[in-house]
């Protein structure tokens, strides 16, 4: 339900009780700063230390089998998805006036974010790159 703008202290207090906006505001600042370093580190490792045209399955599989890369990329994934999702949530809150549409827009947004996040985490932590790497190496050349 849309809550009217509070006109008295009592109304304001009522709408103040369940508010996580301060926490999100801090999160946006912290994650934004962390993302600057995480993304530039990522670009440095995958675009400067190695020529992009040399990035193939073997390179990615070797990289993802390292523990610290899994941790690094998990932070990158988590911060980027949550930072982006919260930014989109701000837009939904601002531009969807109808409470029902706002609810559905947020539901779809959070679902997509959750699916992408889970797929990303599964790829990072549950997928055996070593095994797949061996299998691909065993294939005849040219395939």
């Amino acid at each position, binding site marked *: 339900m849309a809550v009217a703008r509070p006109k008295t202290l009592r109304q304001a207090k009522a709408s103040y009780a369940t*508010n996580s906006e301060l926490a999100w505001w801090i999160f946006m600042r912290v994650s934004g700063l962390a993302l600057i370093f995480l993304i530039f580190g990522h670009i440095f490792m995958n675009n400067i230390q190695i020529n992009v045209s040399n990035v193939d399955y073997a390179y990615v599989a070797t990289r993802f089998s390292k523990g610290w890369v899994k941790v690094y990329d998990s932070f990158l994934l988590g911060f980027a998805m949550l930072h982006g999702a919260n930014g989109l949530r701000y837009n939904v809150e601002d531009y969807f006036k109808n409470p029902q549409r706002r609810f559905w827009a947020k539901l779809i947004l959070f679902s997509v974010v959750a699916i992408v996040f889970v797929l990303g985490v599964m790829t990072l932590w549950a997928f055996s790159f070593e095994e797949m790497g061996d299998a691909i190496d065993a294939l005849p050349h040219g395939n």
Partner: protein
Amino acid sequence: MKVNVKIKRFNPEADKRPYWAEYSLEVRETDRVLDVINQIKWEMDGSLSYRRSCAHGICGSDAMLINGVNRLACKILVRDLGEVINIEPIRGLPVLKDLIVDMEPFFDSYKAVLPFFINEDPEPPTERYQSAEDREIFDASTKCILCACCTTSCPVFWTNGRYIGPAAIVNAHRFIFDSRDQGADERLQILNQSNGLWRCRTAYNCTEACPRDIPITKAIEEVKRELLWRRA
């Protein structure tokens, strides 16, 4: 010099929707926009409606959207605008007639932040002392004239009229950072809601629009930080 003035007009008793009225007139380049619309009203079309009072940038009555920017008609000269002048009512508030908008939602937000001095201590025999340094902290936010240029230039306010708006936050800032005032916690509670402080997306439109040059976005960020430190 000759100017072409287009004014977005609306008479709720006769018009279904607002329309642009055009006026061509001879003015001096040192005239203010307020002089131009006065000339239109007094010499060309007496039905044109707008608010004005002091005409010296203090009362804050004649805020309007002039060539795409919220300004006071009494503070902008014709020579700074050129020959084409487009005037609309400020956005986001219901238009009552021509350039007159309903300011009540704006003042409701203003009232909500308790814009008055709160101190329950018994009055001291002399003064409630405040150092020049302490006064300096909120100096800029004392300059607000409640013209609504900032709030009605805010893109969040346009799409969501429930947002308390920059003007109310600036006026809360004026008392929150006053060393003699004791109502800061109450005001911060009022602002700490999703339609309060946290709707601000730092678009900076308010800072650009303010005819009193108040660094509004900075004031809003200071209030956000104050809330953070007090909650931490």
